[in-house]
């Protein structure tokens, strides 16, 4: 019985966290994620549809990158977030979870806190651009979810990121 109920809880958690969000770790930097697959079906989902998550991810850009041990937004990062804010204001059905990440060059706990700073930097900027704070949540993965695994700066640079992962959409 206990196992069954915890499995049910797990399924419930997954359906909230992942169903509209197949890329829950912000792993898909490339353009070939089948984003529409897990979505709730009401959205065409093609990247050519400007109101689709795929468009947000690929055309607007879902992530900003950071310097080593920094959580200050770069000019490029602010430009990306400007685009995200415009999109979020036009697509008010969506909420988002902003995931903060660090490269592997740091201790586990510190990197969790650093990822939180990065995610919050992106969140705070989106709020200054008019996005309702209640639509944005943050989570830090620290160094737990790298997308590139070489132990060189080329990879580290892509791992130091804050990724805006959409959820919801035509939910009501």
């Amino acid at each position, binding site marked *: 019985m206990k196992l069954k109920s915890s499995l049910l809880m797990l399924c419930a*958690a997954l359906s909230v966290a992942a169903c509209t969000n197949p890329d829950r770790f912000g792993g898909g930097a490339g353009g070939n994620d089948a984003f529409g697959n897990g979505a709730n079906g009401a959205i065409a989902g093609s990247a050519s549809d400007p109101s689709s998550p795929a468009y947000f991810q690929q055309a607007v850009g879902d992530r900003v990158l950071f310097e080593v041990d920094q959580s200050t937004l770069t000019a490029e990062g602010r430009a990306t977030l400007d685009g995200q804010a415009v999109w979020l204001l036009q697509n008010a059905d969506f909420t988002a979870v902003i995931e903060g990440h660090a490269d*592997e*060059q740091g*201790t586990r706990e510190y990197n969790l806190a650093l990822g939180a700073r990065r995610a*919050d930097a992106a969140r705070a900027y989106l709020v200054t651009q008019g996005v309702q704070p209640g639509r944005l949540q943050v989570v830090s993965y620290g160094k737990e979810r*790298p997308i590139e*695994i*070489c*132990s060189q700066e080329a990879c580290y640079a892509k791992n130091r990121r804050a990724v805006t992962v959409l959820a919801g959409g035509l939910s009501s």
Partner: protein
Amino acid sequence: MMNRVLCALGAVCLTALVPALATAQSGPLRIEITEGVIEPLPVAVPDLVAETAGSAEMGAQLARVIAADLTGTGLFRELPSSAFISQVTDFGAPVQYADWKAINAQALVTGAVSVSGNQINVKFRLYDVFSGAELGDGLQFAGTTDGWRRIAHKVADVVYSRITGESGYFDSRVVFVSETGPKDNRRKRLAVMDYDGANVQYLTGSEDIVLAPRFSKTGDRVLYTSYETGFPRIYVLDVGSVQRRVLENNQGTMSFAPRFAPDGQTVVYSISQGSNTDIHSMNINSGVTQRLTNTPAIETAPSFSPDGARIVFESDRSGSQQLYVMSASGGEATRISFGEGRYGTPVWSPRGDLIAFTKQSKGRFHIGVMRVDGSEERLLTASFLDEGPTWSPNGRVIMFARETQGADGRSTLYSVDITGRNLRPVRTPEGGSDPSWGPLQR
């Protein structure tokens, strides 16, 4: 007549063998554990004598584990049985000291085992060969056959303790994160094992990220961080029943880096809210919380002093990650790390005299120790990524995780003496990280 019976956990009982030989004496057989390089002490551990039919294999296995515990410290060197002149076939017969002296054995451990059903009984004696005398009383352990490794560890703990004058650490458990898969798809689950990597038992599944389990002082409970809800949250898990509960689940915050206070009721941990991470404490019975730091900087990785009065933690309030000590009730903190580089994951030693830490300097990671006031810093290891020290119950050995670089990198547990000697991997079925060493079992 001395005939102590120590029974706890129901698993292993200890009695002194009677009659004890001679009077208790410290004897010249002694290893002083110091900073200097030492020559390992030659020890002979013949297979334990089988006193019941079919227990010879068990006698051999027990001897192997006892010897592995002793040699694993780096303080002992085992003499191969092929060198033995005397064979021990009768536990009660007098020891032929000359035969052991001739092969330069300085310590000799003899024992006998009897098995009846699932019950096992082990007797042993420790001899100082060059003095020609027994060192301490013979002892007897009784338990169940599936706990035979614990009995071997208990024998080795007594031998280690009598020869070094320090308490042992072999009959202890370590909770850690067992890992499989590449860095970009790593699966993690909590596991608990004997200190030497045997008897691994998994405590969680690997559906959700789990991080940094921490034993309570008595080893009955584990605190850890899980992403079960989608956000990092702290759970407390009962090791016996594997029942767990979340400590708090506040929207808009993340909590991680928990550790028990010595009282087993207070937990210190970090809460991230917005861009800020501070240290808080909670009484896990009442749920009452208290904020211990209040700066815009990152404050995390708190660890109590063994008397519970102080907390060492890391903060980047100076601009880089450094170590600080404050009262267990919070308030002013004193910085203790001043060397070049960054310092994190401080852990107070069980003796109270040292802080172990992770240091990053010039692109390398180190495990090191310093005194509580920050003096006498010593780095014990160096690699691409060493992290997360934990202390053996006697404060002599540190276990940590070493991750190798590149796409094929994996994480392995290692142990090292606080002298910096005797670096060795801990064999686990999968990769390992975030070890937390529990107490010596009773």
